[in-house]
């Protein structure tokens, strides 16, 4: 059947595009506009050219925030995706007792709001009535405080891993489901080991899912906000107003009223995210060939 080229499709996609333009495109345009101006108490708003961008690129607070999420990205994302992949492969192997129970339970934390997840883990980390305090008391241990400056980023990484490992597992598992079973049978007849099957059949088959999960995780890491913002009340001295780029943009806007500079920080961070996500995608597709 030759599909007729007509305007009918617009009737269906039109509503999505109209709202999309209002909540995606218009704010991007508005942020670009804002970033080109400066507002002073005396003198009001005036054109600033690229002044805000110059300031962002040489702002040590911005770069320390960007460095922190970059570190988070290179440590937390591989750990989380690796664990998700292991669980997906284990469930897909058909060798588990109670496979459906595993699938649903590991996925469940995804349905828990970041606020609740952070409050729970924050309570458990805490010295007041947290598990760490409990263990120290009852076993006479002196475990380090998870909310101390040295461990805070790892503690946040643990919360994020807990929230999203199941979601990524499900993405991998769904992709594994569509691999034709006959491939495995053929490999088994050829005497291929399980590890060989994983390496030569399963992993290449879900390459697309791996790439999508990686890119979503990169975007997620660069946007890190909820977990540090909520932990801030537990450890105000550790989590500064510029702990992550998003927290920095938020503080600039809502405590500092520096809207123009805040918009600039958001744009620079958006551009950095796109560059990194694009570089990863490029590398992944080049490896294929």
């Amino acid at each position, binding site marked *: 059947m030759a599909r007729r080229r007509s305007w009918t499709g617009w009737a269906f996609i039109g509503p999505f595009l109209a709202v999309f333009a209002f*909540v*995606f495109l218009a704010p991007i345009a508005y942020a670009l506009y804002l970033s080109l101006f400066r507002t002073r108490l005396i003198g009001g708003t005036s054109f600033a050219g690229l002044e805000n961008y110059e300031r962002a690129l040489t702002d040590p607070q911005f770069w320390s925030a960007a460095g922190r999420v970059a570190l988070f990205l290179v440590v937390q994302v591989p750990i989380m995706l690796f664990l998700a992949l292991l669980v997906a492969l284990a469930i897909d*192997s058909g*060798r588990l007792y109670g496979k459906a129970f595993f699938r649903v339970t590991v996925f469940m934390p995804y349905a828990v709001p970041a606020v609740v997840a952070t409050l729970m883990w924050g309570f458990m980390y805490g010295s*007041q009535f947290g598990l760490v305090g409990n263990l120290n008391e009852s076993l006479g241990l002196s475990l380090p405080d998870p909310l101390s400056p040295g461990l805070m980023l790892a503690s946040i990484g643990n919360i994020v891993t807990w929230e999203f490992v*199941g979601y990524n597992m499900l993405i991998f598992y769904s992709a594994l489901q569509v691999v034709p079973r006959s491939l495995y049978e053929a490999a088994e007849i050829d005497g291929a080991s399980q590890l060989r099957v994983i390496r030569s059949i399963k992993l290449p088959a879900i390459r697309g899912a791996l790439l999508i999960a990686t890119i979503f995780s990169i975007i997620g890491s660069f946007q890190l906000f909820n977990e540090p913002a909520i932990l801030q009340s537990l450890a105000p001295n550790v989590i500064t107003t510029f702990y992550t780029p998003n927290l920095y943009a938020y503080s600039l806007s809502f405590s500092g009223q520096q809207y123009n500079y805040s918009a600039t920080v*958001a744009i620079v961070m958006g551009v950095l995210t796109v560059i990194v996500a694009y570089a990863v995608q490029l590398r992944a597709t080049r490896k294929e060939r």
Partner: protein
Amino acid sequence: MRRRRSLLLTVLTGIMLIYSLVPLVWLIINATKTQPGLLDSFGLWFAGDFALWDNIRDTLTYNNGVFVRWLLNTLLYVIVGAGGATILATLGGYALAKFDFPGKRGVFAIVIGAVAVPGTALAVPTFLMFSKLGLTNTPWAVIIPSLISPFGLYLMWTFAAEAIPGELMEAARVDGANEFRTFLRICVPLLAPGIVTVALFAMVATWNNYFLPLIMLKDPDWYPLTLGLNEWNDQATTAGGDVIFNLVITGSLLTILPLLLAFLLLQRYWQSGLATGGVKD
């Protein structure tokens, strides 16, 4: 071919299972404790007195029942926001999968390009724009941005491409049904698992949203549950604030139960929705 089950693999994967469950078990156990009980009992076991029912009653009635108000707000945001997002994504995904229309490639490029821009990076400009339009501190400020789910659009597009045979639509057209009737009568039933999946994920995104309402809303009367719970938690650190960790914990439990139930009850739908339409190359 049936495979031999492996106890070793089950136990090893069980470690991840325990990791996923411990915080939830902790939440359930501690929702049964009074505020003093929280402080002087072991975290992963019950305190002497079982106070779950009292905690639930206190959570629902504290401060003139503000928790119930937050729950109703959340339901409003989910029904209108996530419901609208599902409808827009279904219509849009269907159009991308089944129609050829002028400007289709441009639509693709714009949607995919914009998705790469971090959503929270948009939040501050969106706030400034909405405040110019007088939308901040109203439910619309939370609902309108929730209407767009690029992931939902992508999922519906791949799902519709596979689930609807082109001949079926052609047959309906030959019979003289108009496009919209064809969509409602023939395509929507075929898209059902995809629609449930998109609806569930949009629901989670809206129910769990924190950043957007945080910047958009000042008036606690419009707070969703997530903002309200965090406000209760912060009371402990404000001077003279009422320390109500037991209510924060019980409120958290009440907040996550509806979503966990929805996922468990609708398992069959969303798992097939992800598997057929889902993420593959």
